[in-house]
């Protein structure tokens, strides 16, 4: 046996994984009452479509960044009112690009991980008489194929786009940076996957256990929030970079920034394109840059070896459970159906990183932006504007990620359908969860900004006026997903296999959520409230009406 056999085995395993990612039979879905011959090709096709969407997004990011830098002086002048030095602009933009590449790949890994674990494709392979090296290769190939098209896109499109925009030297100089982003993303996916199985999946129930799980999830997801927070505050980073680059003499802050991933790779590309003139590259800074780059390249090599060695263990990482069974009173607290759905979803999210991420992202984004509002706003009126902007972001984020909660219905779908549960209760439970995310995020912003906002009543009225629109948007998205699920006879998708559906359905949802915000910008609060309530009145029957199954 060798690489050829490993490729064949990895392909078979990936086919099964795609199949499970789409139809989730091992997670409790039911075989659709259609011809079974089309299931396997349809599964592969759906996974490939999702990969193509992520890849297109990554390609767009790379091409967009290259186009931006190609005419950087003019663009920065029109954006900021002055020209940012070319090397500084290159470094700032490429730092953002490399960070986003890593974040998106890691995100993809987070989404597919539960399926990889539940599909049991690796343990099945291990029971066959396959020698160790071939099994390791097959496992590595399977893991690589989770990300293959997006990885190839990042590795090819980024250097080519930058080579065309900034010259061949820049195109070559970015290669170590994109390789590092890819390898780090794959390694982080594996590390977080193992952490998930060890510390979260098997964590016990009850109040204390729930608190521990959510704390672990926040800790675990913090790096990805930091990445997204960096994207949110990208312009601030660019200005900071410009300030430290302009400093004369020694600067510890500059040296630290130059040594922090992925700045060394971005800066090297900027230098390759435009030289060192704008970036204050004295001996200490150059040393920091060189050491940083060398350190990260070493880490890339080590991560690649580690990945290859550890990937085989992912299939059977023992689930960490409490050694001593906790005492229990067996007390049950049944709730009304919609609340039962909401509670179930929260409990599942507390043990499933992909869902926890969706739930925590708008809330932690509100924390980050709320803190910035307090710290940064030059005066109260500006704070008011920033706070309202943050709430707007929370409303749109909750609406955008809302449909993804529908994917929880994939779990134990066939069993769930045997319960006397009305579709209306499921839609209400999930829509309430989306509204809850918005309300919690808004409450955090209100609490953080209360010191600077001079008219909390207006702020509160804004939050309340938008709430019906968030609910209406959730109704549109979930109502459509339910109709589609019923028509198809199986759950729409999980995030890995059906990302395009989540993107598509988010468009009308975002329009519904954004309409009152536009009304606010045009005519103020009264019109905003009228639009939001009107949307809810019109759209509720769509989601809550219709025949029950």
């Amino acid at each position, binding site marked *: 046996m060798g690489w050829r056999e490993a490729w064949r085995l990895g392909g078979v395993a990936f086919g099964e994984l795609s199949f499970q990612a789409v139809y989730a039979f091992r997670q409790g879905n039911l075989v659709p*009452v259609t011809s079974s011959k089309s299931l396997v090709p349809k599964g592969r096709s759906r996974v490939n479509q999702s990969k193509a969407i992520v890849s297109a997004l990554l390609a767009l990011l790379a091409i967009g960044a290259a186009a931006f830098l190609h005419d950087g002086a003019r663009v920065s002048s029109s954006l900021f009112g002055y020209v940012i030095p070319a090397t500084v602009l290159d470094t700032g933009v490429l730092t953002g690009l490399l960070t986003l590449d890593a974040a998106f790949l890691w995100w993809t890994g987070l989404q597919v991980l539960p399926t990889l674990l539940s599909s049991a494709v690796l343990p099945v392979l291990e029971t066959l008489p396959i020698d160790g090296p071939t099994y390791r290769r097959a496992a590595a190939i399977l893991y690589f194929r989770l990300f293959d098209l997006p990885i190839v896109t990042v590795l090819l499109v980024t250097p080519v786009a930058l080579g065309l925009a900034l010259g061949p030297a820049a195109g070559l100089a970015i290669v170590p940076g994109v390789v590092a982003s890819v390898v780090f993303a794959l390694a982080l996916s594996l590390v977080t996957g193992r952490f998930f199985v060890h510390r979260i999946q*098997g964590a016990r129930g009850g109040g204390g256990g729930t608190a521990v799980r959510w704390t672990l999830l926040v800790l675990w997801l913090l790096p990805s929030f930091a990445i997204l927070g960096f994207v949110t505050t990208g312009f601030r980073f660019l200005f900071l970079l410009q300030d430290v680059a302009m400093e004369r003499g020694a600067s510890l802050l500059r040296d630290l920034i130059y040594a922090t991933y992925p700045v060394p790779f971005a800066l090297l590309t900027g230098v390759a394109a435009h030289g060192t003139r704008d970036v204050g590259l004295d001996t200490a800074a150059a040393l920091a840059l060189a050491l940083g780059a060398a350190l990260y390249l070493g880490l890339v090599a080590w991560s690649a070896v580690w990945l290859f060695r550890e990937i085989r263990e992912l299939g059977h990482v023992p689930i960490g459970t409490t050694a001593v069974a906790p005492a229990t009173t067996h007390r049950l607290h049944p709730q009304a*159906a919609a609340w039962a759905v909401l*509670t*179930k979803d929260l409990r*599942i999210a507390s043990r499933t990183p992909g869902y926890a991420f969706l739930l925590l992202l708008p809330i932690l984004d509100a924390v980050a932006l709320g803190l910035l509002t307090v710290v940064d706003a030059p005066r109260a009126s500006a704070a008011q504007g920033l706070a309202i902007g943050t709430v707007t972001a929370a409303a749109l984020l909750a609406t955008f990620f809302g449909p993804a909660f529908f994917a929880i219905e994939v*779990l134990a779908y066939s*069993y769930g359908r045997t319960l006397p549960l009305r579709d209306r209760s499921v839609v209400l439970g999930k829509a309430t969860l989306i509204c809850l995310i918005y309300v919690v995020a808004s409450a955090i912003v209100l609490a953080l900004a209360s010191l600077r906002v001079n008219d909390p009543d207006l702020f509160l009225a804004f939050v309340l006026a938008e709430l019906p629109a968030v609910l209406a948007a959730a109704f549109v998205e979930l109502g459509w997903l339910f109709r589609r699920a019923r028509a198809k006879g199986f759950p729409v998708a999980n995030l890995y296999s059906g990302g395009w559906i989540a993107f598509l359905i988010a468009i009308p949802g975002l329009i519904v959520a954004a309409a009152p915000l536009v009304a606010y910008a045009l005519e103020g609060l009264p019109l905003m409230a009228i639009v939001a309530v009107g949307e809810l009145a019109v759209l509720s029957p769509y989601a809550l009406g219709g025949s*029950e199954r």
Partner: protein
Amino acid sequence: MATDPASPRGPPLAIEGLVVQYGERRAVSGLTVTVRPGEIYGLLGSNGAGKSSTIKSVVGLVRPHAGRVRVFGLDVTEAGLRTKEEIGYVPETSMLYDSLTPREFLEFVAGVRRLDASTATARARTYALAFRLESEFEEPIVALSNGTRQKVLLIAALLHAPRLLVLDEPLNGLDPRSVRIVKDLLRRYVTESGRGVLFSTHTMEVAQELCHRVGILDGGVLQGEGTVPELRGRIESGDASLEEIFLRLTREDEGLSDAVALLGER
């Protein structure tokens, strides 16, 4: 438990001319079966005989291509939610919410079934003690053994004291003690007024011991139905076991000795 006067009337389960089709493949062809009040009805068949498709039609997972399925007189395609309230179901495979603990899962089921806290707690506690599940009540289901998952499913099916139990291979993975408990429980269960059990199994001994009547499915068609003595009469063998009856009626005894001999030569 006294029957609720508002409860629908009719036999626990009446299947008439059921046809289930997957694409071009017909899994069940014109099946007619009735589960009478106080009866445990065993549905027997080889792999792919149509047992699970029949059961899925009863619990609303598969829409029949033709025919009718009535639960206490209510048609499952017309009054699906109402019939689901009457049914307690244990599926063939233990596909549960793996992320939830048994307590959290049962709480969800109790909420959907609109049980009050004291009733749900009392029943869950009784069954958990009977199945020795109390020490695993706060462990996520993903970390439980197959047998323990099966116990959770059985408790979930019994939690609302349904009038019809639909059990698809319910003894799979259970230890001997739990098998004994389930058998005793089912026998006592149907003694309450109006209740019935539809029970699918491959294990002939269990069916012979437990079921009042059995139906033998083969290729989606009912080949025989009745009590074991009645079926013995059909094959004209006064002392045949249910296994022998099954093999004769499904004609799976043909070539059986040759197959066994073939294995012996290897």
